[in-house]
């Protein structure tokens, strides 16, 4: 017998483990999108992903200008890796990218985190990574609910309509 009943997602648990501009935004867009759909959302930052919730760095994230084959010059020509390695280039390219995102109505990271918690999404930091980078709760965005272990994270992932997404 064919089963036609739809089983919509009830919960997503998103893991952000990288600190590049695009990686952090991928997690933020997916988390906020889930909150907007009424899906219970947990967003877990670990390793270099912590850059995205550290007060000092979160609004100045960079994209890699070396070792990034998808990087293009304005106009579409390939971006030479040698050029990407020059001092200041990564910074300039990243700030240009953030500006373009702003023009599309994408909020800066701090505001994005607020949007997620405004809809009852929860944001967590990984204890192991926080210890490793010698950070404290005070270094992290006020929107961070708690610093938790991976075991506690898995406890948050209960439910048979839950998905874990690793970006």
């Amino acid at each position, binding site marked *: 017998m064919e089963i036609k009943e739809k089983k919509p997602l009830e919960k997503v648990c998103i893991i952000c483990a990288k600190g590049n501009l695009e990686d952090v935004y991928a997690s933020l867009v997916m988390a*906020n999108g889930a909150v*907007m759909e*009424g899906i219970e959302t947990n967003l877990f930052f670990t390793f270099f992903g912590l850059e995205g919730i550290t007060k000092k760095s979160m609004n100045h994230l960079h994209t890699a200008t070396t070792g990034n084959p998808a990087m293009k010059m304005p106009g579409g020509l390939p971006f030479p890796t040698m050029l990407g390695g020059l001092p200041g280039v990564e910074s300039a390219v990243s700030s240009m990218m953030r500006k373009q995102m702003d023009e599309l109505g994408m909020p800066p990271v701090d505001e994005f985190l*607020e949007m997620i918690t405004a*809809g009852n999404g929860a944001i967590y930091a990984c204890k192991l990574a926080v210890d490793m980078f010698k950070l404290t709760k005070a270094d992290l965005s006020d929107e961070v609910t708690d610093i938790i272990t991976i075991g506690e994270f898995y406890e948050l992932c209960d439910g048979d309509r839950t998905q874990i997404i690793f970006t």
Partner: protein
Amino acid sequence: MEKVIAGKSVDVDTNGYLTDLSQWNKDIAIEIGKEENINEVTDKHFEVLTYLQEQHKNDVALTIRGVGKSGIVDIKQLYALFPKGPLKISSKMAGIPRPKSCI
């Protein structure tokens, strides 16, 4: 397709969004609200709906961020008014198309 909402026959898409804003009235908003588990539609709800309709008429892409900056409600209040679908449910109640925004 046609659907009778609050005693009035209106054109809707497959998701139940009105396809012709001119057929909209406040009773329709209240009725759709009930379907979406919003049992009490307040003046604040209508302020948001009116704002959305104006933005739609001006061809402005809707985002919750935009509504949050409208001066009517902040994002937290928007979620409180339209739980589980701040933009989706409010657009449905406002009689405008399902939002295409990702933010």
